[in-house]
C-alpha cells in the first residue's frame, strides 16, 4: 500500500520503492522521493498540526519552502530529533518518526483549542496591553504561563551527534535556483567557459516544472529537459551542481551562504558524511533565479485543513501522484489555478467548481474549463469554508452580495496570484520597486553585482524567461572574464498563458467584517488584526508588522507580506508603495545551528594555548585556570588539600624557601633597531634612553587618552635591542597598539617589532633560595648581588641551552626569570625542579602568584585597573617621566577630569576582623546607614587570604583614597556590613629588603 490517494500511473515516483514511517504513532507507507507532506496526503491525512496562538487545526498549505503550517517534529533516533520541520521540504526515509506539535492530548482533540473561542481576548497587540498589572503577578503567574504557551515544538534535549562540514568556494557565476531560468543561465555561462556553481533547494532541479506539466523546451517535456540539462551541467568540469542546497543568505561583496542537506533524506546514515554542508561562496557575479511563490486567498476560515495553494495541489498530483481530495474545489484570482482543476479532472478527480473572483479570466483557460465540463463561477467569491478538522464545504456568493450557494468539497485549491521571490535581492540590499500594473514588487536598483532573471524578476512568459536567462548567463560569464565557447539558443512554450492576481482580503473578509480570514498562518494573524493595528495608530508597515507579528514567524511572511501590506494600505488610504515593504533578512529559510556552528564546538570551539611546561604541570596534579586562551597552572594541591590550603602552603613556601612558577604565557615583544629606545620613549611613560644594556625597568603604557593600557618589565639587551614583556592577556593588543603607532604616527623611526611570546618559555624562580637553586645550572653569568642586582638581564646559558636570564620579581622576593627557547622549556624546568624540590621549594600556580604580588601591592592591569585609571590613580606616578617632550598619553593625562581632586585611587584595605576576606567587586561606602541608593566610593579589586601576613588583605579603588589612609570605611553585603581600614598597598616587607637578598 502506498496510500489510498495515490493515483496509479500519475506522478514521477517509483511505486515499487516504498518507505515506512510513523505519524503520531501510526505506521504509514510512503514512496521513496515523497516529502512528509506528500506521504501524509497520499494516506488521506490533511490535519497535521495546531496553530501557534489559537490552536486551530491546520493542514498542509504548500509544497515548498514557504510552508507556514505543516511544521512537524521529525526524528531518526532519540538524539536526532528536530522540531518545526517543514513537512513540505523534509523527504521521507524508512524508519522516520513524525509527531505533530502544539496539541494536547491529541491532534484531533486539543485542549488549547479553547484559545480559539477566547480569541476576542487575544487580538493583535494583546501582549502589550495585558499582563501589565499587578506588577507582582508577572513573575508568579504571567511569565510562567506565557513561557509554557509560547513557542512551537519542543527543543531536543540531547547533544547533536551529527557533524557538519564547511567549505569556502569561489566561482565566476553563482546561480541560485535551478528552474527553467537558472538552468538556462547556468548553461549559457558554463558554455561560455565560466566557473559556475548552481544550486537548488529541491532534491531535483526543475523548479516550477515539478507541477507545470504543459511546458515544452527544446522539443522535450519541460521536466525531462531540466533533468537532461542538469546531467549535462554536472558533467562539465567548470560546473558544480548542488541540489538540496538552499541559498539562504546574500551578504556583502557577493558573499553568499548556501546550506546543503547531505544526509537528512537517507534511511541508512553514513557516519562519514556530514549532516549538512555550509558553503561560503564568493562569486564574481550572482544570478538570482529564485522563482515566485503563490499567494493564498484571504477569506473566512481559509485555514481549514484541506485548503491549499493551487500549485501545491498540482505538485502533489503531477510530481508525487497524489490527489489531495476526491472532490476538489478551486478558488482563484489567477488563471494558473485553472490548470490545477484541469490536471485533477483529467486524473479522474471530481472538480465541482472553479470560483473566480474576477469577472474576466483568461479566455484560453475558460474555454478549456468548458471543454472539460467544469463549472466556473466568475465574479464570485468563497465567503466561508465549512468543516473544522477538514474542509467539507464552501459557501459561494456573487461579489457584492446575494445568497450563498454551498458546494460540498473535501479539498479547496486557492490562488491569489504570484509573489516574485525578491528575498535574496533584498538581502543584497538592492531596492525593490512596485510595479503597479502587475501589483508586485520587483528588483529595482541593484547595489551588488547580481542579476535577477525569470519569475523573481517579473518575467512571466516562458520564452522571454529563457532568452533573459541565456543572455544573463553569457553576460555575467563574459564580465567575469570567460572567453570560451558557443552561444546557447533554446525555445520553449507553455500550454496556457496566465493573467490575473489580487492582493489583500477577498470578498467577505473586508473591513466591515470580523471573520477569521488568515493572512499569516504561522503567527495566526488575520486581516482584521492589520486593520486593528492601523486603528490603534500604527501607520508604518514596520510598526504594523511588530504590533501584529505579521511576517515575524520563521517563514518570514513568504505568503503573508503582500496581503498584510495591501490590507494596511487600504486601511490607511494610501498606495502600496507609500506604505512600503519590510526588509528581508537572512536567512531565507531556517538554518540549523549545526550548520552555522559547524566544527566550532567542543574542543574546537576555541583553541586552547598550552605552555611548553603544561605536560609536567598536568603530571604533577596542577589545577588549571583559563587566562584568555591559555591554560595556566592555578595551584598544585597535595593529597587532602583544598584550594585554600594549597595556596596558603605555596605562599608560605615561596617566602620561606622558594617557588618555581611557569610564566611562559607572559607577552613578549622584541623591539629592535637604531631607534628602539626612542620608540619605547614614545610608547611608555618612562624614559628608556638612560637604561643601560643589561638592566631592566618596569614600564607603563598608556593610550592617548591618558589611561593605563598595559604594563610590564622591559630589559635592554643591547643599545638597539629590547626584550619587552606585557601582561598575558594584553600581548596581542599591545603588539597591535605598537604597530599602529610605528606604522602610522612614527614611521620615520627605524624599529622592527616581533612577537616572541611563544618563542620563549619562562620559568620564574622566586624566594630566598632562588639563587642557590639556579646557580649551578647557569653558565657565563655572575649571579652575585654586585654583578647582577635586582632588575638586571643577561644572556648566557642554563643547562647548556641559551637563556635570557632576568633578575626580577613579582613576589617581592629574590627572584629570577629564566627565559629559554620554548622547546627546552620543560627540560630546563625539570632540571630546576630537581634542585628545588630537595631544598623544600614548591611549584606554585597563578593563585599564589596573585596573592604574593598583592602582599607587595603590585597591581595587575585589567584586574586592579579598568581602563579608567591614570598612573597616578594607581600610585605609579613615579613611573611617568616629567622630562620627556612626548609619549603616548602625555596630553590625555592633563585633561581636566584626570587631574582633579577626588579621583578614585588604588589603596589597600584591611578588614577590622582580620579573618574576613572581602569579595572582589564589593562596593565601598563611608556611611553604611545612609539611605539607599548609597553614595559608593569605589570597589574592591583584589582580595585574598594572606598566609604570610596571617590575615586578609585587599586592594581597592576608592575616591580620594590616599587622603583616607587610616579611615574606617564600610563594605555593605547582603547579610552583613564589613568595616575596613584604608591602608597603603604594601602589606609585606614594606622596606623591600627581600628583593635584594
Amino acid at each position, binding site marked *: 500500500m502506498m496510500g489510498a490517494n495515490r493515483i496509479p500511473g500519475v506522478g514521477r515516483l517509483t511505486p515499487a520503492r516504498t518507505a515506512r514511517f510513523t505519524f503520531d504513532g501510526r505506521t504509514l507507507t510512503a514512496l521513496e522521493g515523497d516529502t512528509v507532506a506528500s506521504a501524509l496526503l497520499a494516506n488521506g491525512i490533511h490535519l497535521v498540526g495546531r496553530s501557534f496562538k489559537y490552536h486551530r487545526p491546520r493542514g498542509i498549505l504548500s509544497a515548498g519552502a514557504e510552508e507556514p503550517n505543516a511544521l512537524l517534529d521529525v526524528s531518526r533516533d532519540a538524539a536526532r530529533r528536530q522540531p518545526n520541520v517543514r513537512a513540505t521540504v523534509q523527504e521521507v526515509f524508512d524508519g522516520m518518526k513524525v509527531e505533530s506539535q502544539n496539541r494536547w492530548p491529541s491532534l484531533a482533540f486539543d485542549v488549547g483549542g479553547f484559545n480559539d473561542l477566547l480569541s476576542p481576548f487575544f487580538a493583535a497587540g494583546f501582549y502589550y496591553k495585558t499582563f501589565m498589572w499587578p506588577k507582582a503577578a508577572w513573575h508568579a503567574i504571567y511569565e510562567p504561563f506565557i513561557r509554557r504557551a509560547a513557542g512551537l515544538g519542543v527543543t531536543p534535549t540531547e547533544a547533536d551527534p551529527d557533524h557538519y562540514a564547511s567549505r569556502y568556494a569561489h566561482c565566476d557565476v553563482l546561480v541560485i535556483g535551478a528552474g527553467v531560468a537558472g538552468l538556462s543561465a547556468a548553461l549559457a555561462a558554463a558554455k561560455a567557459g565560466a566557473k559556475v556553481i548552481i544550486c537548488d533547494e529541491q532534491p531535483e532541479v526543475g523548479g516550477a516544472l515539478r507541477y507545470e506539466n504543459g511546458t515544452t523546451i527544446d522539443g522535450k517535456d519541460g521536466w525531462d529537459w531540466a533533468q537532461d540539462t542538469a546531467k549535462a551541467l554536472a558533467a562539465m568540469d567548470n560546473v558544480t551542481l548542488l541540489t538540496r542546497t538552499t541559498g539562504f543568505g546574500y*551578504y*556583502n*561583496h*557577493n*558573499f553568499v551562504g548556501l546550506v546543503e542537506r547531505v544526509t537528512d533524506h537517507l534511511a541508512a546514515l553514513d557516519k562519514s558524511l556530514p549532516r549538512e554542508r555550509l558553503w*561560503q561562496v*564568493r562569486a564574481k557575479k550572482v544570478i538570482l533565479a529564485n522563482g515566485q511563490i503563490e499567494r493564498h486567498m484571504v477569506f473566512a476560515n481559509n485555514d481549514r485543513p484541506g485548503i491549499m495553494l493551487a500549485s501545491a495541489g498540482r505538485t502533489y498530483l503531477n510530481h508525487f501522484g497524489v490527489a489531495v481530495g476526491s472532490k476538489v474545489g478551486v478558488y482563484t484570482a489567477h488563471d494558473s489555478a485553472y490548470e490545477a482543476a484541469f490536471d485533477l479532472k483529467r486524473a479522474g478527480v471530481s472538480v465541482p467548481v472553479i470560483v473566480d473572483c474576477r469577472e474576466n479570466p483568461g479566455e484560453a483557460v475558460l474555454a478549456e474549463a468548458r471543454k472539460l465540463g467544469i463549472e466556473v463561477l466568475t465574479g464570485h467569491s468563497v465567503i466561508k469554508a465549512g468543516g473544522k478538522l477538514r474542509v467539507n464545504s464552501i459557501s459561494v456568493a456573487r461579489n457584492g452580495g446575494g445568497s450563498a450557494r454551498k458546494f460540498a468539497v473535501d479539498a479547496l485549491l486557492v490562488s491569489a496570484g504570484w509573489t516574485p521571490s525578491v528575498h535574496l535581492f533584498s538581502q543584497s*540590499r538592492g531596492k525593490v520597486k512596485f510595479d503597479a500594473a502587475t501589483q508586485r514588487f520587483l528588483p529595482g536598483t541593484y*547595489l551588488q553585482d547580481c542579476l535577477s532573471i525569470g519569475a523573481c524578476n517579473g518575467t512571466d512568459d516562458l520564452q522571454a524567461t529563457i532568452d533573459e536567462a541565456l543572455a544573463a548567463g553569457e553576460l555575467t560569464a563574459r564580465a567575469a572574464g570567460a572567453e570560451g565557447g558557443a552561444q546557447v539558443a533554446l525555445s520553449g512554450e507553455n500550454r496556457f498563458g496566465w493573467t490575473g492576481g489580487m492582493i489583500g482580503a477577498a470578498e467577505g473578509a473586508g473591513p466591515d467584517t470580523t471573520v477569521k480570514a488568515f493572512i499569516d498562518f504561522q503567527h495566526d494573524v488575520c486581516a482584521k488584526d492589520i486593520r486593528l493595528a492601523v486603528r490603534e495608530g500604527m501607520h508604518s508597515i514596520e510598526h504594523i508588522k511588530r504590533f501584529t507579528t505579521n511576517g515575524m514567524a520563521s517563514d518570514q511572511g513568504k505568503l503573508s507580506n503582500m496581503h498584510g501590506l495591501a490590507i494596511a494600505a487600504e486601511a490607511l488610504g494610501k498606495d502600496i508603495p507609500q506604505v512600503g515593504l519590510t526588509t528581508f533578512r537572512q536567512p531565507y529559510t531556517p538554518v540549523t545551528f549545526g550548520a552555522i556552528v559547524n566544527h566550532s564546538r567542543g574542543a574546537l570551539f576555541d583553541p586552547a594555548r598550552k605552555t611548553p611546561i603544561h605536560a609536567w604541570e598536568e603530571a604533577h596534579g596542577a589545577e588549571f585556570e583559563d587566562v584568555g586562551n591559555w591554560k595556566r597552572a592555578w595551584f598544585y594541591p597535595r593529597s587532602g588539600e583544598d584550594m585554600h590550603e594549597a595556596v596558603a602552603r605555596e605562599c608560605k613556601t615561596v617566602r620561606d624557601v622558594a617557588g618555581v612558577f611557569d610564566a611562559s604565557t607572559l607577552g613578549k615583544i622584541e623591539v629592535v633597531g637604531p631607534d628602539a629606545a626612542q620608540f619605547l620613549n614614545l610608547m611608555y611613560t618612562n624614559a628608556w634612553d638612560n637604561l643601560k644594556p643589561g638592566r631592566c625597568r618596569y614600564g607603563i603604557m598608556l593610550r*592617548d*587618552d591618558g589611561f593605563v593600557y598595559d604594563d610590564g618589565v622591559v630589559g635592554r639587551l643591547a643599545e638597539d635591542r629590547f626584550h619587552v614583556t606585557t601582561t598575558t592577556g594584553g600581548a596581542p593588543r599591545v603588539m*597591535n597598539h605598537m*604597530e*599602529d603607532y610605528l*606604522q*602610522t*604616527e612614527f*614611521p620615520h623611526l627605524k624599529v622592527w617589532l616581533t612577537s616572541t611570546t611563544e618563542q620563549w618559555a619562562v620559568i620564574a624562580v622566586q624566594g630566598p633560595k632562588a639563587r642557590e637553586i639556579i646557580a649551578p645550572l647557569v653558565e657565563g653569568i655572575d649571579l652575585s648581588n654586585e654583578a647582577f642586582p635586582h632588575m638586571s638581564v643577561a644572556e648566557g646559558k642554563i643547562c647548556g641551552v641559551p637563556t635570557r636570564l632576568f633578575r626580577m620579581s613579582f613576589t617581592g622576593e629574590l627572584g629570577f626569570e629564566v627565559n629559554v627557547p620554548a622547546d627546552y622549556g620543560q627540560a630546563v624546568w625539570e632540571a630546576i625542579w630537581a634542585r628545588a624540590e630537595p631544598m623544600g621549594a614548591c611549584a606554585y600556580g597563578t593563585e599564589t602568584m596573585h596573592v604574593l604580588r598583592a602582599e607587595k601591592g603590585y597591581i595587575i592591569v585589567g584586574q586592579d585597573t579598568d581602563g579608567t585609571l591614570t598612573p597616578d590613580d594607581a600610585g605609579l606616578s613615579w613611573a611617568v617621566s616629567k622630562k620627556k*617632550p*612626548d609619549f603616548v598619553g*602625555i*596630553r*590625555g593625562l592633563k*585633561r*581636566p577630569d584626570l587631574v582633579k581632586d577626588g579621583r578614585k585611587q588604588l589603596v589597600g584595605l584591611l578588614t577590622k576582623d582580620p579573618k574576613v576576606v572581602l569579595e572582589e567587586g564589593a562596593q565601598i561606602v563611608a556611611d553604611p546607614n545612609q539611605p539607599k541608593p548609597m553614595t559608593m566610593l569605589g570597589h574592591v579589586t583584589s582580595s585574598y587570604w594572606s598566609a604570610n601576613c596571617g590575615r586578609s588583605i585587599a586592594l581597592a579603588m576608592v575616591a580620594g583614597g590616599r587622603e583616607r589612609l587610616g579611615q574606617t570605611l564600610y563594605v555593605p553585603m547582603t547579610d552583613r556590613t564589613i568595616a575596613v581600614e584604608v591602608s597603603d598597598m604594601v602589606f609585606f616587607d614594606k622596606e623591600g629588603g627581600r628583593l635584594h637578598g
Partner: protein
Amino acid sequence: MLLIYCPYCEEERSELEFRGAGDAHIARPENIADITDEEFEEYFFLRQNPKGLIFERWRHIHGCGRFFNAARDTVSDRFYTTYKAGEPKPDVSDILQSEQNKGAAK
C-alpha cells in the same frame, strides 16, 4: 563578509584577514603636549560618523600586518579605493564623480 583589496599585498582578501582601525587621516598633533583641551577633544574624541563616504583605516592583521587606508561607503559597504598609509587622501569629488560615471555606464 567584505572583500578588501590590500594595497601592500595587491590582492583582494576576505574580511577575516583584516581588522578595522577607525577613521583615517587624523594625524596625531606633533606638539600634542601643548594643544588645548578643545584641540585634544577634536583629535581624540570627535568623529563624523558619516552616512556615505568615509575614509578609514584597516590593518591586514592576519596577512602582511600593514595598516592602510580605504574609502568606503557606509551605506552600501562598497570600497571605492584602498591606498597605502601616508599616501594623500583621494579627492572626494573625484571618487563620487567616477562612481557616477560607472553608474551611467551601467
